[in-house]
């Protein structure tokens, strides 16, 4: 294993609701290497966000991590005390949230919000912290940082707010950034700016990043490796080239062929039938079987193993060996 920064193994996070136990994350394993961007793709309800929240142990009630290990630089985060955890949050592992309009506090100035994080983790004066905050804003290519620092979030546009959220995540030189759909709330031209910024920062600062998204295009553009999630479980893991050119799990194939694309025009889109399953009573066996075009009796009866298939790839499917899956990218 080359310098693994983060290793999540067999993570299970359940939500104990009145309606029943929602198995939002049910046995997810993934790892992130030094200087690498791991894409985590999946639809809503597939457990992407809960996985990220579990890593920082900020799963909202009634959710609870019930099983698994989360190893960050050799420490098992699930064994740490809350106090030790607080020293990791924001400093070692930083989080960029989906919606920049709700993650910045509307009653504090931008500079105060940035310096708060810096002063929390470093023993420096407010003045120095503000100076550092100005540098950070310049770092994320915000024009006129001296002016911005004295503004309130409502005076800024969505793209600028997301840049500030990124600056806040970078403020303590973290090892790992968890970016939860950082561009979903933005327009495409602004999304292009932010993706470019993330790529550039990652290369310049040698960051490791987990990029959560539902857009296969963003994965292909930004990530080195990708983990595909479905209904709280991993479908497959591999490098971006491997997964896009030779998908081994039927869900990945379906995801690649059902998304309309600028480059690949088709008369009729192929369709994944049905809906995302209910996670209180997930389907038996392989969770994708009710919607899978290749499902057989074994898929209904038995839960597939999450097995390594060489080249660092893992697949969660009974039939990966016999299936000849096609990717629209390869042709």
């Amino acid at each position: 294993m080359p310098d693994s920064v983060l290793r999540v193994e067999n993570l299970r996070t359940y939500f104990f609701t009145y309606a029943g136990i929602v198995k939002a994350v049910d046995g997810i394993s993934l790892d992130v290497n030094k200087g690498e961007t791991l894409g985590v793709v999946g639809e809503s309800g597939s457990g992407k966000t809960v996985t990220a929240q579990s890593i920082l142990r900020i799963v909202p009630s009634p959710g609870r991590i019930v099983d698994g290990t989360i190893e960050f630089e050799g420490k098992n985060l699930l064994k740490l005390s809350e106090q030790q955890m607080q020293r990791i949050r924001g400093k070692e592992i930083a989080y960029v949230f989906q919606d920049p309009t709700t993650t910045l506090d509307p009653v504090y100035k931008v500079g105060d919000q940035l310096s708060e994080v810096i002063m929390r983790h470093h023993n420096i004066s407010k003045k120095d912290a503000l100076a550092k905050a100005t540098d950070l804003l310049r770092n994320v290519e915000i024009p006129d940082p001296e002016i911005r620092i004295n503004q309130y979030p409502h005076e800024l546009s969505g793209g600028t707010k997301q840049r500030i959220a990124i600056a806040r995540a970078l403020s303590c030189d973290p090892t790992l950034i968890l970016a939860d759909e950082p561009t979903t709330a933005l327009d495409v031209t602004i999304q292009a700016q932010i993706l470019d910024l993330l790529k550039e920062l990652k290369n310049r600062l040698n960051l490791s990043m987990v990029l959560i998204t539902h857009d296969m295009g963003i994965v292909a553009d930004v990530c080195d490796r990708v983990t595909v999630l479905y209904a709280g479980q991993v479908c497959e893991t591999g490098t971006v080239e491997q997964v896009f050119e030779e998908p081994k799990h039927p869900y990945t194939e379906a995801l690649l062929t059902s998304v309309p694309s600028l480059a690949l025009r088709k008369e009729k889109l192929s369709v994944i039938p049905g809906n995302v399953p209910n996670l209180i009573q997930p389907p038996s066996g392989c969770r994708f079987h009710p919607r899978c075009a290749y499902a057989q009796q074994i898929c209904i009866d038995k839960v597939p193993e999450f097995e390594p298939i060489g080249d660092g790839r893992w697949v969660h499917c009974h039939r990966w060996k016999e299936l000849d899956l096609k990717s629209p990218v390869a042709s």
Partner: protein
Amino acid sequence: MEIKDLTKHFPVYERGIILKRRLGDVHAVDQVSFDIQEGETFGLVGESGCGKTTLARCLLYLEIPTSGSIFFNGKNITQIFKRGNRSQVLALRRQMQYIFQNPYSSLDPRMTVADIIMEPFEVHRHIPHAQWLDRMYELLRMVGLEDYHAERYPHEFSGGQRQRICIARALAVDPKFIAADEPVASLDVSVRAQILNLLRDLQQKLGLTYLYISHDLSTVRHICHRVAVMYLGKIVELADTEELFEHPLHPYTVALMSAIPIPDPKHKTHRIILPGEVPSAINPPPACRFHPRCPRRIDICSKVEPPLIEVRPGHWLACYNPWPSKQVAS
């Protein structure tokens, strides 16, 4: 349908102690003209705040246009909505329907699916009461739902199913024209394809005309016949889908296309990053509204507004210095 010089301004007020002071207007839609042919899907693309939704709402008179006129089958509908009696207005409403962006907020949570779909019957009384139930079930099946769904409430459905209910409701009055405002934007990717295919099948079966609004160029390419690109209340380029995607001419269109990530790791995009953000529509930049962000601006761009002219058969463009050749990400 033909739209001529349609304009919609929203006044912005500052509230004083006694009087309101008018600060200015949001130029949501400014002097827009185009036509939609029968049986086609006309795409309207642009970023948030460019006036797509306002334009569509004006077409159906959900917003009252500030000026300009809209002709539907040769009739000036702005006149009918303004002066016509109730039966004339209802007759028009039966021909034009709207599918809203968010199927979570456009269905009344306290009505069953049957009530939702039959409400148009009650308002319009265009079919006899005895046929209401049959027609309702027919509509449900047409959009791919089952008969037993009729008794349920919206909260029991997923996003894709709700959007199907919205489509069934729009179809309840046998419209000829449907404005679909980002119908798949709030749905999961695996469900989007289902709804897009449904819209296309219905069009073929019922001969519908669509106005399809989206910020997502890839779905537009998939279902539209012609596409107009909007920027800050203006149409900057309009062409057949293939023509637009193969030979985009306006720098904004080119930038918009290059900004979309392509799901292929080998694909190297020459991404054109536009500097800055969409300016305020209260004080839009003078002349060409795109010029402060445009990579190809020349002197005249900030002085005289470029007219929308036909540069090739069926390809309309408002730009002085269009993108040279085909070097785009498609």
